[in-house]
């Protein structure tokens, strides 16, 4: 007996598919095409075959940027640890705890550009960081923090963490509401201390959220741009010290007008993020199966 064909589900799906086709699929295929062209954005593209990919393989700045993007992934475990700790801290019935939750969430709604500019001002030679360190005698003369190549990328990463920790904290906080209180009661009866309760119950209970946060924060880290742009004032740090893949892509496209080369970078980044997503989803599925 054959199933009766129904047009209704496809009609419901059509609006979403149209939007995805226009705003996701078309740009991906357009970028794929441009990656095989010499395209300056302002003049028509000219087909050059694999030339852009060949250039990419031999370009030391691209590899340096890619390396920085992978280093940037370190923000993911740091974000998870800090967010879980914060979630545990604010998951208490204490007076004024809602105010603390709101305070931790403020960076999320502040906007990365505004916060980046604020950080840049704080790290300025005449900024508040130097003023504090000078006043307590740690520094003898003001440091040019943003002129230290070894510090530029860590500052960007710190900004990403500061911006994201409140958001991920809320995710973990929501996850903790689903952990039955009885589990903590039984653990207490079994003689678990506070550390053991959180390690064996809270962290275990948050595994789906941890995997989810790992996926989205690592993808965000691979695509970081705003923090690098604002902290370095659009330069990418002295000696390209904070170049990431997306920053280099932007520079190629909008500073040097090499949209073809930028498209090739974008395709490589797409493949990397796809691979990351698949690995993460596989881990997520495995975690769910284990549960």
């Amino acid at each position: 007996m054959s199933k009766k064909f129904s047009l209704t589900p496809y009609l419901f799906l059509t609006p979403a598919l149209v939007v995805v086709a226009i705003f996701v699929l078309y740009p991906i295929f357009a970028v794929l095409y441009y990656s095989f062209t010499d395209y300056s954005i302002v003049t028509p593209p000219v087909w050059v075959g694999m030339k852009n990919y060949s250039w990419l393989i031999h370009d030391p700045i691209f590899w340096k940027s890619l390396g920085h993007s992978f280093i940037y992934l370190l923000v993911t475990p740091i974000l998870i640890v800090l967010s879980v700790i914060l979630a545990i801290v604010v998951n208490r019935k204490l007076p004024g705890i809602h105010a603390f939750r709101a305070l931790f969430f403020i960076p999320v709604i502040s906007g990365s550009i505004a916060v980046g500019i604020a950080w840049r001002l704080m790290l300025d030679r005449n900024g508040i960081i130097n003023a504090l360190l000078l006043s307590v005698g740690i520094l003898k003369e003001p440091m040019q923090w943003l002129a230290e190549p070894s510090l530029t990328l860590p500052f960007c990463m710190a900004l990403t963490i500061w911006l994201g920790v409140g958001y991920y904290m809320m995710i973990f906080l929501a996850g903790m509401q689903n952990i039955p209180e009885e589990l903590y009661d039984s653990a207490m009866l079994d003689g678990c201390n506070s550390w053991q309760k959180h390690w064996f119950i809270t962290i275990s209970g948050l595994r789906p959220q941890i995997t989810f946060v790992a996926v989205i924060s690592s993808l965000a880290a691979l695509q970081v741009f705003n923090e690098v742009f604002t902290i370095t004032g659009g330069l990418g740090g002295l000696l390209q010290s904070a170049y990431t893949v997306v920053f280099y892509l932007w520079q190629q496209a909008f500073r040097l007008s090499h949209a073809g080369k930028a498209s090739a970078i974008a395709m490589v980044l797409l493949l990397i993020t796809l691979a990351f997503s698949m690995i993460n989803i596989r881990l997520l599925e495995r975690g769910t199966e284990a549960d």
Partner: protein
Amino acid sequence: MHKKLLILLLLVSILVTGCATATTQAPAATSIPPTPQTIILTSAPQTIIETVISEVVVTATPAPNPEAVIQGVEADAEIGFWTFWLSPTFDQYIKDTIARFNQAYPGVTVNWEDHQATFQDDLKASFAAGNAPDVINLSVSEGWVSDYASQGLLLSLDELVPQSVKDLYFPGLWNEQLIDGVNYQFPWYQGINVYLINHQLYDQTGLTIDDFPKNWTELPALCATIKEKTGTLCDIRLTVNDLISQMVYEGNVKPISDDGTSFTFDSAEAVAWLQQYVDMVTAGTVDKTVLVTDQDRVGLDLFTSGQAAFYATGPNLIREVRANNPGLYGYLGVVPAPVGKSGVIGKGLMSLSINAQTEYPNASIALAQFFTNPRSMLEFSKIVSIYPSTPDSYADPFFSAAPVAIEDSAKPFAEDAISKYADIVPTIPHKADVNAILLRYVQDALFNNVPAQQALTDAVAEANLLLP
């Protein structure tokens, strides 16, 4: 008797009113000038004298507008006009000038937009989308004209602009940023290269304003003194978007061979130029973030905050200091910028160019020319310390008047200075790419202990790969 007199007065007033009404309603067919008519009415016991101006409204053919110097402007043209960072301070000037333009060229609609920090990105996106503005405010000093012209995006002006109009501008400015000998810009407002001095810091060095370096090579010694005496760093900026140009003006570097087959910015002159900056970085006398920022405002903001002894800019930006730190304004000094080894004191600042794909080339040329004509330039100069690209503007008493405010201190020598501006940088193929390569290697020398000679030799080797 009184009654009769009253009746007489009433009649006279009716008569006078009637005459006036009749004259104002007269058809305006001739060009007779207004004629005063004296009517004397005599009546006992007094004489009433009334003077009536009889006006004639004339609809004569208007005389040619002396500012309408471009012929063949397309009827009902609608053109886009983008400026760079002029709003809101100069909104009224721009609007007034457009209104005057509309009187000179009736029927042309101008859609003005001001773009600021994202100007370049917006412009590239608009070119890509096919809706770029017709008239574009491009920076000569940052090399934008040559960037866009070399990509075929700007309209060549040599054939389309009459010689009489070209002659309105200083020749050195008209012939700036030529691409293969062709001009793509109307020179607009100019800046005088000056250094602003913060006397609160500078005077701590024990130097006077007359001791300020006259030559670019004297800056390192001054920076060392400033650091020693005040603990502050020099607020010096490399033009990171156009390093080659800076090398040429400051270091008298020849950037490319005469036949254009190889780059030559690894010469002894180029090494000496770079070494001077390397020495300042090594000595710790310059702010490193300002040194390589691509935003002039970063350096200006540092100066405005009162934390730098001097900054290279134009008198027009003194308004920023006055607006953002009025306390510093009273301590400002202005000195001419030190001259580089090339001996050429500078090049132009801003220009107006035409989109090569404009639907209305004549209307666009007319607008660009109108904004850069002597009258428009003079009026602009009167509201901000910019300087005209047109010699005729300097004939106005405004420029011969003694300076009052510090913003005006360059007025007495402005015409002479600007008349000597010249673009001495040859056409550089793949300029943006070459500049990016050079910047990378210059940073290696500045911050990574790579010897200046090696950095520049490597830069030249990599840049040469771009040449055919």
